[in-house]
Every structure is written in C-alpha cells, then in structure tokens.
C-alpha cells in the first residue's frame, strides 16, 4: 500500500500528482481510484503525473496513463507527465504514450 502523506497538490484546476515508487498492476487499481476521485472532487482540467520518485513501471502503468488521459479527455482537460527517467521514457516511447499525453518541462 501507498503510505506517503498526500502525494499531490491541487492549485485551481491543476492536480500535480507524485507517482509511487513502483507502478505495477498491484498499485494500479488503488492509484486509478485515487486519481479519478481527486480529478472529480476538484474539477481538474490538467493532471500532471510526476515520475520523479518512480523507479519501476511496467505495462500496467501504461494502462493507468491511457485511462487517465481518457477521463481527462471527457472533461476537455489533459494529462501531462514530467521527470521521466531514461527507463520510463523508453516505455512511453515504445507504447506510443506520447500521442495521448504532453511532456512538461520545468
């Protein structure tokens, strides 16, 4: 389970969410639930998924990102990602994720 204290920040309609250390099928379900709940509760238009703490991600993580880009799409918002390590960037490229999310530079 994820026991970090508030891994996110809301400012206006922007949700900045720090992704967990390992993004696999085990954490995906509760992660999606939390993200959807936050997006709904705060009427979010821009979801920023920050991978600065993420050391591992497999195809289940791709599902999380694609799914959120759909939910945000329904509310005419969008998903941006940041701090992708070399490894996660390769996974994003291989699966065509850059077609559905934007890359946020600092």
């Amino acid at each position: 389970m994820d026991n970090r204290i508030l891994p996110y920040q809301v400012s206006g309609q922007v949700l900045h969410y720090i992704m967990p250390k390992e993004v696999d099928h085990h954490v995906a379900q509760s992660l999606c639930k939390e993200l959807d709940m936050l997006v709904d509760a705060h009427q979010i238009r821009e979801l920023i998924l920050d991978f600065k703490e993420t050391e591992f991600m497999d195809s289940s993580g791709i599902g999380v990102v694609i799914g959120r880009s759909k939910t945000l799409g329904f509310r005419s918002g969008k998903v941006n990602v940041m701090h992708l390590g070399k490894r996660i960037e390769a996974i994003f490229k291989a699966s065509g994720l850059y077609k559905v999310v934007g890359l946020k530079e600092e």
Partner: protein
Amino acid sequence: MKGDNYMYIKFDAKSINESVARMTVAAFMMHMNPTLDEIQDVKTAVSEAVTNAIIHGYPETDLVNSKEGECSEKNEIEMICAQEDETLKITIIDKGVGIENVEEARKPFFTSKPDEERSGMGFAFMETFMDVLDVESRVGKGTKVTMIKYIERKDEQ
C-alpha cells in the same frame, strides 16, 4: 565465478507477489554481475509474465483480489530461474485458462481486456527486454512462458 545455479519457487497468484517475484529474480541474478539496465530488463519482463498469469491466467482470482484482498482458491504460479554460464533462463508457469491463439496474443497492442485499461504491451516488453521469448499454452491447462537473457561477463577488474 563458475558454476551453475538453479532456483524454484511457487507462490499464490496474488498481486502483492508481483514485486516479490521481481525482487527474487534480481537477487538470483546478482552474482552474474549484471548492469543496472540488465536488472531492470529482467525485472520488467518477469513483472509482465507474473501479472499476466494473475490477471489473465486466473481471472476469477483477480476479481476476488480486488474485492477482498484475499484469494480463496489455491491458484499458484511457479517460477524457475536457471543460470548456466552467461545464460539466465526464467520460466513462469500458471495452471490457468490458457491462451487460444498465442501468435495473436504476442502481437503488440493485442489485449483481450481493453475495457480494463490494458494496453497489450506485456509480451512486446518481454520480447524487447529479453533475448529469447517462448510461449507455450493450452486452453484449460495453463501457460508456460520461457525467457532467456544473456548477461555478458565483465572481467575487467
């Protein structure tokens, strides 16, 4: 540095064991002196195969998992790691529902569960990150995924 090594483990088809399987394989390959990239490659491939066994091989367990965090039935996954010289061979076996059309299942972006936010990249990653991928499956009997990774010896001390 010489010598072959072998490990066999069997665990419940529960999602908490995905990270257990990854860490176990990483520990097993450590004495082969792998690079960080090689460790990540193998961990990703193992994670894909074990996750597939849990969600596709034993779909009913996955349902129970998400409801109560417990699985009532004895659905198990076997993982065999064998090292021979510079060759690491990993076999992951489930006794679940099996795959009807393996060739189709291995294609990138193919998934039988698009509604559950699956991307169909699991086999594609196993293929990319490992040197050999072999999938044997029989409907109603189960699936056996065999993967090989060559870990080149680094002797420059």
